[in-house]
């Protein structure tokens, strides 16, 4: 009986490890291709469509990208927007999500419905532009943060996590003389770190990927975040023009290697965030802290 179980368990382990390894490989290979392509020559990239190990290494694509300070500056902008934006978003979202997680709140259902409603009926581009303009945020970095400060999706998820905390927690804290704000910041948030980490990651990635609002609201190109430049290069180098005009033949498109290099430059910083957040995803974090 016991042996049967361990054999079954062993098979489970083998299947599980093998499957996950294959999946990891399949997701990794295209990215390896992008990295390899960024370090090779255009000639090699033209002959071999899917390069995994370049035969000739060169840094010329990176030299080209960093020949001006434009990419460096835009990376700094993106880092700034992501840091400030994530903080603002988390603050607003935590406050609202905690409020909405309180089941005794009068009008809770209506507010939640109104929030969900905004996911379905989206605001038009032009009226949103008018609001941003009237608030004086054109050409300000705030235009990349404030108009998308709360995501209804993230808010609902966060509310759900807060709600799953043990019910008695708040009662006992209240008896100990904790205010509502105190409960949120001293008890609820520290006990929900996996959720906080998850939603922070969602927001951070969203801010990192911002490009359309930047194009819309920033007239000053020196304020562009890195995704605007990434997209510009990718769209030009892919030879795809969303509106299908092709009179632009006079200026040759950027090299494919440059396209790959700029993808690497714009992606790696955000990839580095996740491993740091992983420590909040340890099992039993919640229970451990309650017991402790």
């Amino acid at each position, binding site marked *: 009986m016991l042996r049967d179980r361990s054999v079954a368990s062993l098979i489970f382990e083998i299947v599980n490890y093998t499957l996950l390894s294959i999946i990891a490989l399949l*997701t990794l290979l295209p990215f390896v291709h992008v990295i390899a392509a960024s370090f090779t020559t255009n000639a090699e990239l033209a002959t071999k469509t899917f390069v995994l190990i370049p035969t000739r290494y060169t840094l010329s694509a990176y030299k080209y990208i960093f020949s001006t300070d434009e990419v460096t500056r835009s990376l700094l902008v993106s880092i700034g927007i992501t840091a400030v934006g994530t903080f603002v978003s988390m603050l607003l979202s935590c406050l609202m999500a905690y409020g909405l997680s309180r089941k005794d709140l009068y009008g809770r259902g209506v507010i939640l419905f109104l929030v969900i409603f905004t996911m379905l009926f989206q605001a038009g581009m032009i009226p949103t532009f008018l609001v941003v303009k009237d608030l004086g945020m054109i050409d300000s970095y705030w235009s990349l943060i404030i108009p998308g*400060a709360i995501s209804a999706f993230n808010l609902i998820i966060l509310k759900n996590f807060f709600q799953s905390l043990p019910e008695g927690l708040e009662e006992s804290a209240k008896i100990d003389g904790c205010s509502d704000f105190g409960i949120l910041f001293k008890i609820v948030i520290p006990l929900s770190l996996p959720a906080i980490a998850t939603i922070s990651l969602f927001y951070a990635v969203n801010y990192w990927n911002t490009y359309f609002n930047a194009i819309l609201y920033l007239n000053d190109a020196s304020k562009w975040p890195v995704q605007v430049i990434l997209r510009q290069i990718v769209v030009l180098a892919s030879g795809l023009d969303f509106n299908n005009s092709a009179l632009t033949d006079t200026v040759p498109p950027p090299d494919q290697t440059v396209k790959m290099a700029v993808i690497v430059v714009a992606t790696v910083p955000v990839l580095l965030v996740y491993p740091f957040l992983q420590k909040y995803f340890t099992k039993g*974090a919640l229970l451990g802290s309650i017991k402790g």
Partner: protein
Amino acid sequence: MDATMAVKPTTAVKTKPKRNVRNRILKNRYIYLMILPGLIYFVLFKYIPMVGLAISFEDFQPYRGMFGGPWVGFEYFHQLFTDPAFWMILKNTLILFGLNLLIFFPIPIVLALMLNEIKVQFFKRSVQTIIYIPYFMSWVIVVSITYVLLTTDDGIINGILVELGHQKINFLLSTSWFRPIYVLQNIWQGAGWGTIIYLAAITSIDPGLYEAAKMDGASRLRQIWHITLPAIRSVIVILLILKIGQVLDLGYEHVYLMLNSMNRSVAEIIDTYVYTAGLQEGQWSYSTAIGFFKSLIGLILVMGANWLAKKVGEEGVY
């Protein structure tokens, strides 16, 4: 005197729930204070700009300003329902939505459960980090890599097929391959990213439960079924409802990049149609009307799903 006597009880009856409400609000005044910034945000950036939907009832042109065009009532909706392409587009949208929900949605859950069973921390963390990389590849890149893999002119997959003695398959020019490719691309790009939220939910499970189950001799699959899954059920339900609400968002850019003269009959969806009609042709009112219609479908689906969730004892999203 009699009159006042007669009046008093009724007012008392009337004011009682009111006072009750006022008390409930007063008691939670700080909670309302917490919600207030968020509420202001939603009003300012979501509800006020929603007046833009009004342009689906007027003959709008950008230069005339928001309400400068003549009102046309439901004319654009009439145009939509009589558009010969409409039923095809609606069908395509719903099919892709259904495929997303049936095939794509469960995969991150399975992946998260598989990852949760890994005991070697290094392996687990590495796999986690790797499988979420594709989320950062823009669709332009995903689609161009797909073409490199699938083309009949020296594509890798067709190369393998020929090696194995098969005929080449013309993936890119066929209508029947569009949907499988679309779903596979979605899975490749989003499945790893989707696990994050479930992994976060799994952390709240008491490890003691697994210990107890092991003592009882429950197999690994049984543990997953009886402990892990129930613990993340409410997250699954919430996400399911929210995803249903995103029947709208099949990824306009993704589909647009895959769309071509060969597969339009299966690949043209509401999102791509709105884009072409609105931006490329300046049919602002018409494209807004289509969007409005799409939102209505979304609303009905979400309300239905939420009702169903409550019916089976879940909390729902509102």
